[in-house]
């Protein structure tokens, strides 16, 4: 694993490049993380996915959007969802230029799938898009988080609360991370249903469970000649927080994605 900073020197992004561990292909994969606690919990699964892809000969780059992970800044610095879409572009360019690969695939999980999908639709140089348990649009994601907050039960016996709330400035506090009003406004403009990744040759919608939204996206995208839908049943609660630091490793989906990369 080769950790590196790339992109704008004033606001660098952090990524980890994994070179091929088999006969190198002329192809690279960019992995786009989900947001917040889901990012923390998905790190292990992404590391494993990257490793399996590298064993198939792919160049792999997983990276942190600005204001997240090890990348510069903070989401409170006025970061928008469009910035993250731009960051996907920077990561794609970085992988292409640093390795010289001709073909690029982009994988995104949850909010990362929405960001990746919109980013790929705006470009004409992406060969494959894989959306894993995708968030369909910004409204849906906001609704999901707000619903979780309103359903939250008070902690038993007066212990500390989660701190999840919707504050007076319009930010959502969720499991230790903040989704600012500015970010939310920009995120609401994003929709996978409306995104038309027509120049992408292959699309895989990999899902760990059935959900109405996944079916909606399937309906919107299935006319694409390279579209495929795959159900790989696996646990999917990326927001689960405990005191043990337990994290998900949903092997069936990881394997489905790796298999789709043949």
């Amino acid at each position, binding site marked *: 694993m080769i950790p590196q900073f790339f992109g704008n020197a004033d606001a660098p992004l952090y990524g980890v490049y994994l070179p091929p561990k088999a006969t190198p292909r002329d192809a690279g994969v960019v992995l786009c993380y989900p947001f917040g606690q889901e990012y923390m919990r998905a790190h292990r699964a992404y590391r494993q996915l990257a490793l399996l892809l590298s064993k198939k000969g792919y160049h792999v780059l997983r990276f942190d959007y600005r204001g997240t992970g090890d990348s510069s800044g903070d989401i409170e610095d006025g970061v928008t969802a469009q910035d993250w879409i731009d960051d996907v572009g920077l990561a794609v360019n970085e992988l292409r230029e640093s390795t010289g690969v001709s073909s690029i695939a982009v994988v995104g999980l949850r909010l990362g799938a929405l960001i990746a999908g919109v980013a790929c639709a705006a470009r004409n140089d992406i060969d494959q898009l894989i959306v894993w348990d995708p968030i369909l649009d910004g409204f849906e994601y906001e609704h999901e988080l707000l619903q979780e907050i309103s359903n939250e039960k008070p902690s038993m016996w007066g212990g500390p609360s989660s701190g999840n709330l919707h504050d007076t400035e319009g930010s959502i506090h969720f499991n230790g991370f903040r989704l600012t009003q500015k970010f939310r406004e920009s995120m609401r403009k994003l929709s996978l249903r409306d995104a038309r990744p027509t120049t992408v040759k292959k699309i895989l919608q990999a899902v760990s469970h059935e959900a109405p939204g996944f079916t909606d996206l399937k309906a919107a995208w299935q006319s694409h000649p390279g579209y495929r839908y795959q159900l790989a049943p696996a646990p999917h609660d990326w927001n689960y927080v405990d005191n043990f630091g337990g994290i*998900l490793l*949903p092997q069936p989906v990881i394997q489905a994605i790796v298999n789709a990369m043949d």
Partner: protein
Amino acid sequence: MKERALRIGKPTPLIGIASEPDNFNPDLPAVLILNSGVMHHVGTCRLSVKIARAIADKGLLVVRFDFSGIGDSEPRRGALSFEESSIAETREVMDYLQKTRGISQFILYGLCSGADASYCTGLADERVVGMMKIDPYCYRTWQYSLRYYVPLLFHMDRWQSFLSKKIARVVGGKKDKAPNEIAGVDEQYFEVPTYTRRFPPRDQVAEGLRKLVARDVSVFVAFTGGEPEYLYLNQYRQSFRDVDFRNLLRVDYYPEANHIITQLDYQPRIVAGIADWVLNVARGRIANPDANKTAAA
């Protein structure tokens, strides 16, 4: 402040990020931020990043890195337990910084298992001059018992729950649920740290703390409301009445915060508190690098 990715050691490097202050001074201690459980070096709720940047802005070099097999560091071959490898790898990072940057004093930060690794490394390596630990080893006092058991009397549901657990353990040999069972996730899809946290006997830790005090190591311990074994601010001092901390100990208690501090309103307070404490310790060290009698409390 600038940040740089590090690869420390061969053939399987430890991956880390150095937060470098604008005016680097090798006479000041560097701060190492250790993993908590299997969370990578970004830290729970990105706290390690926030702490590292806040400290670097005050002029100290900070490195947050992943132990082998965690986060971005690949597993290393060998038969060392986590308890052993965490000490060895923290020392390896200290060696690296001593060799490449001329730093000879270090302050360690860790939460939960990271706190345990900080303590154990501090005992093993005299270059450690300070340690900041969140939810470290702690021990009950009579006041703890009072605060824990008396409220039980007024809450029948808690009392019933307490008794039923005790009875189930005695009668049925009932064990605590595994983390994956609590999460409701099949074991094969759920990873938990290999490190099983067990508090050493109190006397053993008291002895260790006396050794640290004898070396003038500054210690900052903070407890959250997520640590069920800790119930009030002075519990730490009272549980170690037989240790004369002089002015080397600071204790904070954040009862409204949970173990991984998801409360966003709390985070800045904690980050600022740690950065200020680290700066005070560092200033004390640079003012008196040999005897190091000055410390923050």
